[in-house]
C-alpha cells in the first residue's frame, strides 16, 4: 500500500560525492551512503527484510548480500558503505542461490496462510519470496517451530502474532531509534529468540503504542486490528492530524469512505513518518455513536432538544442574534473559535463576528493556553510565533525545557528531542514535576530544576543575573541586533543582587549552585534552544516569563539560526493558526491591531462592511459581562469552555445568564449542555482546510469522507452569515485560503496549489520567501531591533496557607487530548480511564491517604474528588492532576487568577487542601444529575435504545 520508495537505509548528507557502478550503471551518491541505498537511487532493488530506511542498517537477514569486484565474500549491502569506483553486482547465480536458501529457512518456520493473512498483498516476506524465486520448502513442519505461538491481543489497536515473526528486529529498533522508548527487546538466543515487551503483554508494558513497531514490521506479526478487520486499504489521502501542535502528516489509508488505518507520512515535514498513539490510532471518535448529526434547538436549557432542519436551525439562530442585538446592542453578542478548527473555519468565524455582527467580540481558546506567547514574543522579537523548525533541535547542543512535557504533550517531537539527547546534547529541565525526560532510557537531564509552581520569573531572573554578571552576554550580537537602551535597562535590572541565584534560591526551592551551573550551560554550551509549554504561560506572570525567555535568548545570541531559538510547544493542533487568523478580539489576521486605520480599511474594503476600531471582549470578559447582564448571545465553534476554562461555576453561571448560546461541535460537549442551538460539526476527516502547527507549518487537511452532519464547518458559518444578510461566496475552503492570502502579508504566497506541490509550508510565505521561512529572525528581528523587557518577579496572589497548604498544578498525559472529547471516545481510555490526583508520599502520609483512596480537593474556588496516586514524581507540597474527564471537575477548583497582559488563566497554581473522603463532591453529584438530564434531552438513537 505504501506509496513511498523504501531506500533500505537512511539518506546521508556529505560534501563528498562518491561514484560507483552497480549492475553496470554509474551512480553518484553522498559519501557514507550504503550500497543498498545507492542501488535504489539508481533504480536497482536489492532484496531485503531487516532493512528499512527509517532505521539504521542492521545486517541480519542476509538477503541483501551483493558481490563487489575484487572483494572477498558477500557483504550485506545495507551495512556496506559506497566507495569510489567499486563495481557491485546485485544479481548473480551465487547470490540467487544464497537468497533462496535464506528465504527457504524463513518460510520453513512461517505459517503458509497467505490467502487468509491480513497482510496478503502487503507483506514484505511474501514479496521477497517472490523476488528470490522461492518455489519449494524442503523442510517440513515436523521439527520445532513457532507456529503455535500465542497471539498477544492485549493492545486495543494492534496485535502481536509471534508465529509470523522472522526476528528481524525492525520493531525493536523502531522502538529504540524512532520512538526512543526501548520497550521491546529480543529475548533468548538462537531458535529461542523472540520479540518481548518485558512484561506478559504489550498493554502492560512500557510500550507507548506509537505504532512505530507496527509500521516497521515486514510481516503480519505486528499489525493494526483495523487492517485485520477491514483488509488491506485500496487508496490513501494525505492529511494532517487533528491532535497536538506537532501537526503530523498522515496518509489516511482507505477502503471507499472507511478509514482502514492512519499511517504517518514519510514526507511529513513535522513528523518524518513517525506518530503517537493518538494520531495513529485514536481516530475512531469520528464515527462514534455519540456524534450528533442533526441540528437541534430549544428555548431553555431545561427543555428537551428538538431536532430541526439545517435551514430551521440556522434561521432560528440568526433571528435570536438579531433580536438580541436589537434589544441589547451589537456589543451584546460574540463568538469563540477553537484551535481544533481549521484556519479557514477560524477565519470565517471572526469575519462573521466582525463584519456581520459588527463587533470585535471574538476570542479563541488560545486565550487559556498560549496567549502570553503571542503577546510576549510580539513585544520582544516582533512576531507572535516560535522561531524554529522542529528539525532545528537536531542542531542543538543544549536543550532547555521549561514547563513542558514533550513526551506526553508533543510525543512525536519528544521522540525527536530524545534522539538528539541520545546523540549527546545536554538537557536542562525546569519543572516542579519529574517529567519523563528527566530520566528515561538513555536520556538523563543534566539539571532538573524542580522549582516551586508560580516561580518561573524568579528562575529567569536568576538565569539573567548569571548571564549578565558573569560576562556571558554576547555583546556583539546585542549591539548589532537589539535596542541598546532596553538592553542596558534590563542589564542593570538583572545585575541586582536580589536577582541572584543565591537570593532567589529559597523562593524557587532550587539550590543556587544548580541555577548558576544551568545558566552557564545555557549561555556557553553551544547552540542552546528553549522549548516551553503551558507551564510557562498559564501563570499570572505568563507573559512576563515569555519575555524573560526572549531576553536571555537575545542576550546570549541564541536566536536567528538553526539549533537555537524560542520554541513554544503549542497544545492543540491549530493554536498557532487560530491566532494567526485574527481570532483574538484586538487584532485582524496577521496580528494587526483593529485600531490601525490602514489595516481596518483593507478589511472594510474586502469585506464590504464598516468595522469597529475598538478591541472586543475576551472570553473571561464575555462571561463577566454576561453575569452583569450586558452580554447575551454566544456563537461557540468547536470549543468547550465549560470543561477547559477555569472556575467552572463561574463559566456556567455566565452561560446560564445568556439568552442564546449556539454551539457547533461533534458532540454534546459540556458547553452544549448550556446551549439553545446546536449545529453539528464535522470531523477533520470530513473537511478540507489547513492547520498551522507550532513551527508555523501550514499543512493541508483533506476530506476523506462525506461529512456525517452534511456540511463542513465553514459552510455552517457561511450559512449563518447568509441568514444574517451577508452571503459569503466561497465554493471551497481553498477560496477562503485565497482570501486570507490576499489580506495577510505573511500568508501571501500560500494556497492549496502550493500545499499540493510542497506538502506544507512555514509562514512567512511571501514573494521574498516563496517556499516559506523555516527559521525566523536570521538577519534582523521582525520588529527591527530586538527589545528587552524588565521582568520583575511578582509572587502570585494565590498563596498557600494553613487552610490550603498544597499547590495544585495541572497538565496532560500521552493518551488523552485536551478535554478528552475525542480521545475519551476511543480505546485510549485503556490507558487513562479517569483523572487522578498525584500526591507525594509524605503529604499522603500526613493526611492518612493511601494509593487509590478517594480524596477531596478543596480550593478557594470549589471542591472535587479524585482517586489518589501516590508518587514521588511530584515534590512535597505539590499535587498534580489532568483535566481530560469532565466529571473530574479539575477546573471546579482552579481560580479566576490570570496573566496580567492576556488574562490567560493561572491553571498551574491553585492552593488546595486534600482530605480522605468517601463520596463525590457536591459539585460532582450535581454535575452527574445535570449531565444525565442533558443527555436525556437529546433525541438520539443511543438514548432510544436505553428506553
Amino acid at each position, binding site marked *: 500500500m505504501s506509496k513511498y520508495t523504501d531506500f533500505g537505509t537512511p539518506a546521508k548528507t556529505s560534501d563528498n560525492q562518491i561514484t560507483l557502478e552497480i549492475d553496470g550503471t554509474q551512480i553518484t551518491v553522498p559519501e557514507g551512503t550504503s550500497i543498498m541505498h545507492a542501488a535504489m537511487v539508481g533504480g536497482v532493488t536489492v532484496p531485503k527484510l531487516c532493512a528499512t530506511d527509517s532505521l539504521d542498517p542492521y545486517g541480519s537477514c542476509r538477503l541483501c548480500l551483493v558481490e563487489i569486484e575484487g572483494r572477498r565474500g558477500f557483504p550485506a549491502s545495507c551495512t556496506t558503505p559506497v566507495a569510489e569506483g567499486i563495481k557491485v553486482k546485485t544479481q548473480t547465480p551465487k547470490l540467487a542461490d544464497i537468497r533462496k536458501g535464506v528465504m527457504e529457512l524463513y518460510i520453513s518456520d512461517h505459517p503458509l496462510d497467505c490467502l487468509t493473512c491480513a497482510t496478503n498483498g502487503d507483506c514484505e516476506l511474501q514479496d521477497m519470496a517472490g523476488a528470490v524465486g522461492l518455489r519449494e520448502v524442503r523442510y517440513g513442519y515436523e521439527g520445532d517451530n513457532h507456529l503455535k505461538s500465542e497471539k498477544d491481543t492485549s493492545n486495543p489497536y494492534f496485535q502481536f502474532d509471534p508465529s509470523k515473526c522472522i526476528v528481524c528486529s525492525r520493531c525493536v529498533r523502531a522502538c529504540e531509534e524512532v520512538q526512543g522508548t526501548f520497550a521491546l527487546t529480543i529475548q533468548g538466543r538462537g531458535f529461542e529468540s523472540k520479540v518481548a515487551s518485558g512484561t506478559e503483554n504489550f498493554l502492560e508494558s512500557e510500550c507507548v503504542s506509537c505504532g512505530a513497531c507496527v509500521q516497521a514490521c515486514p510481516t503480519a506479526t505486528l499489525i493494526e486490528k483495523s487492517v485485520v478487520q477491514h483488509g488491506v486499504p485500496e487508496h490513501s489521502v494525505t492529511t494532517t492530524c487533528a491532535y497536538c501542535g506537532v501537526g503530523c502528516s498522515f496518509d489516511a489509508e482507505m477502503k471507499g469512505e472507511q478509514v482502514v488505518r492512519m499511517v504517518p507520512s514519510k514526507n511529513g515535514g513535522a513528523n518524518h513518518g513517525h506518530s503517537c498513539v493518538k494520531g495513529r490510532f485514536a481516530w475512531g471518535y469520528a464515527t462514534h455513536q455519540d456524534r450528533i448529526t442533526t441540528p437541534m434547538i430549544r428555548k431553555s436549557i431545561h427543555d428537551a432538544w428538538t431536532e430541526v432542519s439545517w435551514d430551521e436551525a440556522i434561521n432560528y439562530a440568526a433571528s435570536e442574534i438579531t433580536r438580541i442585538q436589537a434589544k441589547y446592542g451589537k456589543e451584546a453578542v460574540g463568538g469563540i473559535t477553537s484551535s481544533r478548527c481549521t484556519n479557514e473555519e477560524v477565519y470565517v468565524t471572526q469575519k462573521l463576528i466582525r463584519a456581520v455582527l459588527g463587533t470585535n467580540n471574538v476570542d479563541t481558546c488560545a486565550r487559556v493556553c498560549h496567549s502570553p506567547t503571542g503577546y510576549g514574543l510580539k513585544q520582544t522579537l516582533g512576531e507572535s510565533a516560535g522561531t524554529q523548525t522542529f528539525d532545528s533541535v537536531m542542531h542543538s547542543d543544549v536543550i532547555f525545557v521549561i514547563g513542558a512535557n514533550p513526551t506526553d504533550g508533543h510525543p512525536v517531537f519528544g521522540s525527536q528531542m530524545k534522539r538528539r539527547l541520545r546523540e549527546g546534547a545536554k538537557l536542562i529541565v525546569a519543572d516542579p514535576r519529574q517529567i519523563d525526560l528527566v530520566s528515561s532510557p538513555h536520556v538523563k537531564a543534566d539539571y532538573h530544576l524542580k522549582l516551586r509552581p508560580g516561580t518561573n520569573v524568579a528562575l529567569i531572573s536568576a538565569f539573567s543575573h548569571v548571564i549578565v554578571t558573569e560576562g556571558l552576554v554576547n555583546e556583539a550580537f546585542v549591539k548589532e541586533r537589539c535596542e541598546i537602551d532596553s538592553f542596558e535597562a534590563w542589564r*542593570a535590572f538583572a545585575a541586582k543582587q536580589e536577582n541572584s541565584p543565591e537570593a532567589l534560591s529559597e523562593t524557587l526551592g532550587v539550590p543556587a549552585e544548580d541555577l548558576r551551573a544551568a545558566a552557564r550551560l545555557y549561555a556557553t554550551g553551544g547552540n542552546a534552544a528553549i522549548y516551553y509549554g503551558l507551564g510557562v504561560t498559564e501563570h499570572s506572570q505568563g507573559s512576563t516569563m515569555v519575555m524573560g525567555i526572549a531576553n536571555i535568548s537575545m542576550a546570549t545570541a541564541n536566536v536567528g539560526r538553526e539549533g537555537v531559538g524560542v520554541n513554544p510547544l503549542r497544545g492543540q493542533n491549530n493554536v498557532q493558526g487560530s491566532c494567526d487568523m485574527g481570532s483574538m478580539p484586538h487584532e485582524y489576521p496577521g496580528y494587526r491591531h483593529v485600531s490601525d486605520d490602514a489595516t481596518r480599511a483593507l478589511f472594510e474594503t474586502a469585506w464590504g462592511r464598516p468595522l469597529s476600531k475598538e478591541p472586543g471582549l475576551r472570553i473571561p470578559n464575555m462571561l*463577566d*459581562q454576561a453575569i452583569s447582564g*450586558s452580554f447575551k448571545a454566544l456563537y461557540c465553534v468547536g470549543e468547550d469552555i465549560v470543561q477547559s476554562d477555569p472556575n467552572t461555576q463561574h463559566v456556567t453561571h455566565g452561560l446560564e445568564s445568556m439568552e442564546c448560546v449556539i454551539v457547533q461541535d461533534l458532540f454534546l460537549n459540556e458547553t452544549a449542555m448550556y446551549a439553545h442551538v446546536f449545529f453539528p460539526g464535522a470531523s477533520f476527516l470530513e473537511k478540507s482546510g489547513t492547520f498551522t502547527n507550532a513551527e508555523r507549518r501550514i499543512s493541508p487537511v483533506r476530506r476523506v469522507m462525506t461529512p456525517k452532519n452534511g456540511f463542513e464547518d465553514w459552510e455552517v458559518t457561511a450559512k449563518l452569515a447568509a441568514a444574517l444578510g451577508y452571503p459569503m461566496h466561497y465554493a471551497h475552503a481553498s477560496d477562503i485560503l485565497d482570501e486570507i492570502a490576499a489580506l495577510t502579508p505573511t500568508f501571501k504566497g500560500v494556497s492549496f496549489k502550493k500545499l499540493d506541490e510542497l506538502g506544507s509550508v512555514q509562514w512567512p510565505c511571501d514573494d521574498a520567501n516563496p517556499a516559506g521561512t523555516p527559521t525566523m529572525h536570521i538577519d534582523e528581528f521582525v520588529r527591527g531591533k530586538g527589545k528587552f523587557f*524588565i521582568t520583575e518577579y*511578582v509572587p502570585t496572589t494565590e498563596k498557600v496557607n494553613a487552610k490550603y497548604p498544597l499547590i495544585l498544578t495541572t497538565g496532560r498525559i500521552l493518551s488523552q487530548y485536551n478535554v478528552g472529547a475525542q480521545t475519551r471516545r476511543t480505546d485510549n481510555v485503556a490507558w487513562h480511564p479517569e483523572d487522578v490526583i498525584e500526591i507525594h508520599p509524605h503529604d499522603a502520609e500526613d493526611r492518612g491517604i493511601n494509593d487509590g483512596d478517594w480524596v477531596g480537593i478543596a480550593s478557594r474556588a470549589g471542591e472535587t474528588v479524585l482517586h489518589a496516586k501516590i508518587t514521588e514524581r511530584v515534590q512535597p507540597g505539590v499535587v498534580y492532576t489532568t483535566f481530560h474527564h469532565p466529571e473530574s471537575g479539575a477546573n471546579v477548583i482552579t481560580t479566576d487568577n490570570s496573566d496580567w*497582559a*492576556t*488574562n490567560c488563566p493561572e491553571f498551574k497554581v491553585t492552593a488546595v487542601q486534600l482530605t480522605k473522603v468517601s463520596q463525590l463532591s457536591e459539585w460532582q453529584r450535581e454535575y452527574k444529575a445535570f449531565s444525565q438530564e442533558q443527555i436525556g434531552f437529546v433525541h438520539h438513537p443511543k438514548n432510544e435504545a436505553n428506553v
Partner: protein
Amino acid sequence: MNIEQLITMANQIGTFFKSSPDTEQAKKDIVMHIKRFWALSMRLQLIEHAQSNAGKGLEPIVKDAIIQHQALLA
C-alpha cells in the same frame, strides 16, 4: 462588569510596567496596554471609577496613569 475585577486587572498591568526606570513612560505604557487590549466599555468603567471613587483600590501609578492619560484611554 464587576469593578473589582477590573481593578485587579489594571493593578496587575501597573505592577508590570512600574518596573520601568522611567515612571512617566510606565504610566503611558499602562494606559496604552489597557487601550489596546480592553473593550471600550471596560475602559469607560475604569475611568468612571478613577474619577468618581477616587480610584479606590487602584495602585497609585495606575490611578495617576488613568487620570493623566484619560483622553487617550476613552
